[in-house]
């Protein structure tokens, strides 16, 4: 599988910059997610890889070939569109083998390829059906089969699961990931759903405001976000404003916190943000003084069975703690409590 490189890619639509100076190197055979809120430029980036939009500046390279000026129909990239974009005038089989027909593959071979691909997406025997007779989930699979029919160099998916309901979406995430691993095809998924990105990818590219914010494996992005945007966008986060005291020490709400990660290169006295994930925050009954602790009062308790979420008001800062029911302190709304932020769970982010 060939590596895909994006070199200094910038795309402008009139005065608007949709993608700004993106440099990415994606290893062949990996599954990569472009993750970000709507309007961050992730779809535009994908469309430039497919050749549907031309970059204002920069290059797209596949292996050692420069594809920047290769038209879309000569790139051999399979793409699943957000709207699926199935051809309403063709049957399921003809949709899937549209590309093969363009290439002049014989009718018999097309029929057997269609059946093969339908089996791959677990929809055997529906080649003769009309698109309008399919359910949303089936259309999804047909669109995937169609994009894979030409054995593309790169498999591109633009918000492929957004039209499905939650249960089906989760099942499809796993299935897509397994399909990708079985075929070993370089795959890029555009999504705004962080769960989808975490489930499916080897590498997550977090984008906002036309720029790449962070590139890394899902767990690294979750555990070591590069900045407050990534921390806030991936998972739920407690973001506390603080001031650097010394390396490893941050002043939060007037108390000195010990910090074991991040902030090494931050000069003392600069404003920083301390990130603590809710599942790392402990809530203790009553007021108990100690290191890395803040007093507060319980604002809200959300008990949804498998997890309990306690929102504590610490002098105006809302802190969320998520725990399992057995660790739950006997606190009621309005009770005075102490919130503990273990040093190992605190990460310093520069603003």
């Amino acid at each position, binding site marked *: 599988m060939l590596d895909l490189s994006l070199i200094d890619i910038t795309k402008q639509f009139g005065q608007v910059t949709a993608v700004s100076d993106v440099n990415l190197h994606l290893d062949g055979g990996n599954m990569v997610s472009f993750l970000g809120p709507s309007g961050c430029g992730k779809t535009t980036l994908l469309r430039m890889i*497919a*050749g*549907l939009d031309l970059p204002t500046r920069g290059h797209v390279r596949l292996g050692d070939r420069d594809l920047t000026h290769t*038209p*879309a*129909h*000569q*790139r*051999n*990239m*399979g*793409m699943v*569109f*957000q*709207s699926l*974009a*199935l*051809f*309403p*005038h*063709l*049957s399921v089989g003809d949709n899937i083998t*549209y*590309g093969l027909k*363009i*290439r002049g593959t014989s009718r018999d071979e097309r029929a057997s390829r269609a059946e093969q691909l339908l089996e791959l997406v677990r929809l055997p025997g529906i080649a003769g059906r009309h698109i309008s007779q399919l359910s949303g989930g089936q259309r999804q699979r047909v669109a995937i089969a*169609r*994009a894979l*029919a*030409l054995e593309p160099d790169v498999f*591109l998916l633009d918000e492929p699961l957004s039209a499905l309901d939650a249960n089906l979406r989760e099942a499809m995430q796993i299935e897509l990931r397994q399909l990708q691993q079985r075929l070993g095809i370089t795959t890029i998924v555009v999504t705004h759903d962080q769960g989808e990105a975490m489930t499916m990818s080897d590498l997550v590219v977090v984008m906002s405001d036309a720029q790449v914010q962070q590139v890394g494996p899902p767990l690294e992005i979750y555990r070591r976000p590069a900045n407050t945007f990534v921390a806030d966008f991936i998972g739920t986060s407690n973001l506390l404003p603080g001031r650097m005291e010394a390396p490893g020490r941050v002043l939060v709400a007037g108390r000195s916190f010990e910090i074991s990660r991040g902030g090494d290169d931050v000069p003392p006295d600069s404003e920083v943000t301390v990130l603590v994930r809710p599942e790392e925050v402990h809530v203790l009954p009553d007021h108990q003084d100690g290191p890395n602790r803040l007093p507060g009062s319980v604002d809200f308790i959300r008990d949804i069975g498998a997890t309990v979420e306690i929102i504590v008001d610490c002098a105006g800062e809302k802190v969320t703690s998520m725990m399992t029911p057995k660790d739950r302190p006997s606190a009621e709304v309005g009770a005075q409590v102490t919130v503990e932020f273990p040093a190992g769970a605190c990460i310093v982010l520069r603003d």
Partner: protein
Amino acid sequence: MAASETASRPGGDRGPWLLPIFPTIMIGLFFVIPFVLIVAVSVAHQYPEGYYEPAFELTHFRRFLKSIFINTALFSVGVAALVASICLVLGFPFTYFITRLPRRAQVLWLVYILAQLSLSEVLIAFSWQVLLSKTAGVANILVWVGLLEKSVSFYPSFGAVLLALTYLVLPFSVLILYPALSRLEPEVTEAARTLGASPVRTFFTVVVPIMRPPIVATGITMFVFTLGAVLVPQVLGRPQHWTLSVLITDQAVFQSNMPFAAALAIFLLTLSMALVGLTIWINRRYEVKA
């Protein structure tokens, strides 16, 4: 079921029945009654002096068994089909091109095309007569650039009739095709591109087949419009280029033979209805097969 449901709503039960009455009356007044009158006149008795009396005779219908009328009818159908085809061949790619333009450019084009509709058939026929004339027409420009020895008149001719008829109905074809084409998702054509189809191939294998129903509808409308044109063939064509509509006008206005004109009109109506029906039927069969 429905009756009991409406009855349970006090006072509101008559609303749904009253609503369509007004349009029904209007259609009855302006379409059905004139048509009944035409049918009645077509079987009336014509006196050689030029007036007619109510009667029931089929003389007028028998008259177009004479070959001239059959030929004219076939010629009219042929011209209408040709103009409809030219409109589609020109209008469809052009409309597709407009829908791919930025919003502002689309509006400008549509305003321009809508403005064309303000020109009546009379204006168009006589404008083309001037444009194609020997003294003031385009031939003089051709002489000026050296393509012609000396100026000629391009009318009366079949080409002139075809040109002006196409000019007359082309804006309508664009306006009928525009809504359907602008609703065509760009992603569908992009999908074809990613599957290896060149833009031209995409146009013929995706855009045209998806747009078949509006294409058929436009073709039918252009066909019927052209059949109804009276002035263009008369002004720009020779008598052998006259369509059935011209003959109807001639019979009604100049020959003072209302019953025969009415009979011809009914024949024209039946003919176009049959052809439209046939097209729809073929289209349906194709759809079921696909």
